[in-house]
């Protein structure tokens, strides 16, 4: 095939300087008319992007170096740059007798929080959309309340209740309902958006008129249609739980973040390694989430939108 052949139907290539298709017929006017300094104007934005890339990558790289390379910073130079890289710091953390119980507790809390969140929010969200659409704004308002009561203030309240509810709060799993609350803004939004995207009423009416009971309507019609929303809600919840420090620290529950904090005091290198791992796991959760949501729904930039929604306030930088 002739390489110079151009498909006459193919869209015109975008003008790299302007980037956008002309908003109106521009006739023969050369690109860049009205914006002569365009080429120069890109210098500043490009600089911003490069500086940002350095700022956002540098801490991750130095964290990785500190965890994996056993060379003090003073001795670090061109000739020692590739010396003594190993996973020994991490294995030290794994050998600590307190590590596995802490990891187990954090994973149990994550699973418990996801289950309780879904068990509580799915019926509520479906019911609201079907039967009481008027309540939607009320519920939405309720779900952003945890932003206004930060974890440290919530735990102050828990401390007050503690003497009256020791039977409950003495258990490590008493953290679960509070973690459901912390993750509520993320999770409800994601489920609500999922329900908005499908024609719930028609689906339910169709399923019911075909003779399905409520149980099979919910489990075989509604939930499969909400798969993406449920997965993202679960991942966001897990990310919140795995990183939560404030409440666990104040209530002295030995979760993974608390172990990270104390272990780093004893064994800096191993501790930094653990933090690196925690970071990688969290990033992994988010990346998997973005891949999953993108595949299911190619039209929407789901992840960006989801992230923007979720990030109305991230609950967890603080927690």
């Amino acid at each position, binding site marked *: 095939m002739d390489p110079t052949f151009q498909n006459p139907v193919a869209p015109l290539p975008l003008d790299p*300087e302007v980037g*956008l298709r002309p*908003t109106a017929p521009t006739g023969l006017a050369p690109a860049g008319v*009205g914006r002569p300094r365009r080429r120069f104007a890109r210098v500043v*934005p490009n600089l911003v*992007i490069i500086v*940002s890339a350095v700022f*956002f990558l*540098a*801490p991750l790289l*130095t964290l990785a*170096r500190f965890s994996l390379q056993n060379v003090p*910073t003073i001795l*670090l130079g061109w000739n020692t740059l590739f010396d003594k890289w190993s996973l020994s710091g991490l294995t030290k953390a794994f050998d600590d007798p307190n590590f596995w119980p802490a990891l187990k507790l954090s994973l149990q809390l994550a699973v418990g929080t996801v289950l309780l969140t879904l068990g*509580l929010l799915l019926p*509520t969200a479906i*019911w609201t959309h079907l039967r*009481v659409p008027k309540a939607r704004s009320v*519920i939405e308002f309720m779900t952003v309340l945890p932003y*206004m*009561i*930060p974890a*440290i*203030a*919530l735990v*102050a*309240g828990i401390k*007050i209740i503690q003497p009256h509810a020791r039977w409950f709060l003495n258990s490590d799993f008493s953290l679960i*309902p*509070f973690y*459901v*609350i912390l993750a509520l803004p993320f999770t409800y939004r994601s489920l609500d958006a999922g329900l908005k995207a499908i024609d719930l009423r028609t689906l339910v*009416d169709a399923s019911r*008129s075909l*003779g399905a009971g409520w149980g099979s309507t919910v489990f075989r019609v509604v939930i499969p249609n909400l798969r993406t929303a449920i997965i993202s809600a679960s991942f966001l919840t897990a*990310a919140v739980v795995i*990183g*939560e*420090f*404030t409440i666990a*620290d104040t209530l002295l529950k030995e979760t993974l973040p608390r172990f*990270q*904090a104390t272990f780093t005091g004893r064994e800096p290198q191993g*501790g930094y390694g653990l*933090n690196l791992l*925690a*970071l990688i796991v969290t*990033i992994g959760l*988010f990346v998997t989430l973005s891949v999953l949501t993108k595949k299911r729904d190619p039209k929407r930039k789901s*992840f960006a939108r*989801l*992230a*923007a929604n979720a*990030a109305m*306030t*991230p609950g*967890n*930088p*603080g*927690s």
Partner: protein
Amino acid sequence: MTDLVITDVVADGGRTAGAPPKARRDLAWLGLLPFFAFLVLFLFIPAISVFRNATNTEAGSFSFSAMKEAFTGQNLEAFKFSVKFSAGAAAIGVLFGTLLAYAAATATRPRWLRNLVTAFSGVAANMGGLPLAFAFLSLLGRQGVGTKILNWAGWDLYAGDFDLGNVAGLIVVYSYFNIPLMLLITLPAIDGLKQSWREACSNLGGTSVTYWRRVGLPVLAPSLLGGFLLLFANSFAAYATARVLTDNSKIVPLRIAFFLGGDVSIGEDAVGFSLAAWMIIIMVVCMSLYWMARKRAERWQS
């Protein structure tokens, strides 16, 4: 059985067409009861307890003295310090978040850049807590690699009174999640700036400066203001990162934790709760204003 299904469908159809019977609609609200009960138990009761304990004396009578005491001595210092670095962190976050959002929105080459930036921002805006603090210690701590590189380049970071736990240090660290958060907030607003407005402006003889001063910034203003409030609240309430970076309880969340730690006499703990109460009040004010600004910003985005 079949009968039941049919009546149900008819009832559903009837309801879609007209208003549902009042009794039935009232019953429908009952379905939300478990959710509200959960919120009351695990959110409202703790939050209200904070206010009750903050305004009660030991004898059990109502008093504002603890709420006032939150603004004296070391507590006042903590408030001042918190407000100072939170406002600084919010300002830096707004400035660089908007710049970065603009750069990403207008970048055409490479095409994946924008997606990468938004995806990374979604992750970084939610990053925080302990790992972030330790990452910055390894970069800009006294033994940090970044400190060493800067030193080699002739800038002794620790020559003055710089410390990651001071105002400047906390601002740098918090920028890591504030800038991406700001980017996510302003990106839709920047996308809302229509190319035709710029063209209209230059057709009327305006320069780039005129465009930004008379069109761009006024349209972006609610987003920028809302972003500032959100970032302020975000920085003000953050706990874990600051816990690692500062050694004494000089910011408000750490002071609350100090009082909760229980090393204070009986009467004193009301002060801790009043600090928490003030924190909730500040958060409510910031977030309400943020919501108002957001509603206003959405006017240009459709």
